[in-house]
C-alpha cells in the first residue's frame, strides 16, 4: 500500500496522507528514498519508496506472538 504526496513549498516541504489511518503528515523537508517516517496519529512506520513522486508505504513490523 502506498500513497503519493503533494508538495506545498510555502508551509512545508511536502504533505502526504498516512496509508494506514489517513492522517495528514506534514514534512519539513523532502525525505530521502528508503528513509523511515512515523505517523503521529497511529505511530505506524512508513518507508519512503519514491521521492519523485514522494510515495510512502507501510514499513515491515515485528509481530507480537504470545501464546505460541
Amino acid at each position, binding site marked *: 500500500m502506498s500513497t503519493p504526496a503533494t508538495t506545498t513549498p510555502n508551509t512545508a516541504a511536502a504533505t502526504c496522507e498516512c496509508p*494506514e*489511518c*489517513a*492522517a495528514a503528515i506534514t514534512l519539513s523537508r523532502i525525505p530521502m528514498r528508503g528513509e523511515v517516517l*512515523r*505517523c503521529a*496519529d*497511529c*505511530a*505506524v*512506520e512508513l518507508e519512503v519508496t519514491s521521492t519523485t513522486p514522494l510515495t510512502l508505504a507501510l514499513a515491515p*513490523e515485528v509481530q507480537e506472538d504470545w501464546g505460541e
Partner: protein
Amino acid sequence: MTDRPRISILGGSGYTGGELLRLLLDHPHVEVAQITSRSQLGNFVHASHPNLRNRTKLQFIAPDQLAPCDLLFSCLPHGEAARQIDHLSTLAPRIVDLSADFRLRDPAAYRKWYGSDHASPAWLDRFVYGLPEFHRARLATAKLASGVGCNATAINLALAPLATRGLIRTVVADVKVGSSEAGAEPSATSHHPEKSGSVRSFAPTGHRHQAEVRQELGTFDLHMSITSVELVRGVLCTAHVTPTQPLADKDLWKIYREHYGSEPFIRLVKDRTGIHRYPEPKLLSGTNYCDVGFEVDPDSGRIVVLSAIDNLMKGAAGSAVQCMNLMLGFPETTALTFSGLHPL
C-alpha cells in the same frame, strides 16, 4: 470566607467521595464547604482518604448538619438520594448525584434493573444524564445532573460513534474491571485470599449498567459480560461489533476522528508500534481520560472497539466534576487535566 461557590459532599467517606474531594481541593474556582459521613462522624477526612493528609482540615459531619451550599454532590448508596431528594433540593440549587438513582429516565427500568420501584419517579425527567460528551449543552444549563455508571461509560464512549451512525447490528461488550468498583465496604468477595489472583466472572449477563447503554445509545442488539480482574482501578471494555455494513480501519479512523476530534478527554489510541498500542487502564489511573481504539478483522468484518477508563474518575468523580464545571460556567477541564503516572 471567599465568594467562590461553596460545594458540599454528602456521603463522602467512600472512594468516589475521596476522589471528588481530591479534585475539588485542587479546583481554583470552588470552595469545599462540608463533607458528611455517618460512620466517620468527627474524623478528619484523611482518616478515610489518607492521600489527602494536610490538604484540608475538613472533618466529617452528620448529614443533618449540612448547611445550604451552591452545589451538592451526593455520594449516598443507591436508593438513598431518591428517598431524600425533596430534602436535598432545599439544601442546594444544583445537585450532582453520583448514585444510579437518577440516571434512567424510565421509572419501569428501576423495577427491572434495580429490583424495586423508584422512590421519586417525578424527579427523573428533571435530571440530565451526567456524561458531558453526550449532553454538554443540556448540562450547561442544568440544575440537576446524574452520575454515570462506570461500565456503562466505558461502553457508551466506545460505541457512540458507531451507534449514532446506525452502524451497529450486534455488539458483545466484554468488560474487565478493577476491585474499587465494589466500593470501600469490604465483603466476602473482596477478602484477600479469595480476591487475590482471581479472574472472577461476576455478571456474565444481566448487568444493570446495560440499562444506561440502551438509554443513551439506542436499541441495537446489546450483550454485556463483566469480569473482575487483578486491578484496583480501571475498566477495559472490549466490544465485539457486527456492523450493519462493511467498514475498514480507515473508515473507523474517519468516524472516530469526526466524532471525538475536539473532545478534551477522549483520546484515540491505535498505534502500529510501541508497547501500548491500544487503550490500557493502568495508564489512566487518577485521570479523567477515556482512551478508545479499534481494529477490524478483515476476514469476518467484525469490529473490535476497545476503551479504557479509571472507574473512579471518568466513570464517577471525574465526570461529576466535569458536569459541575459546565453547570457553574467554568472551563470544562478545570481541575481535571492530570495526565496520570508512568511508569506505575
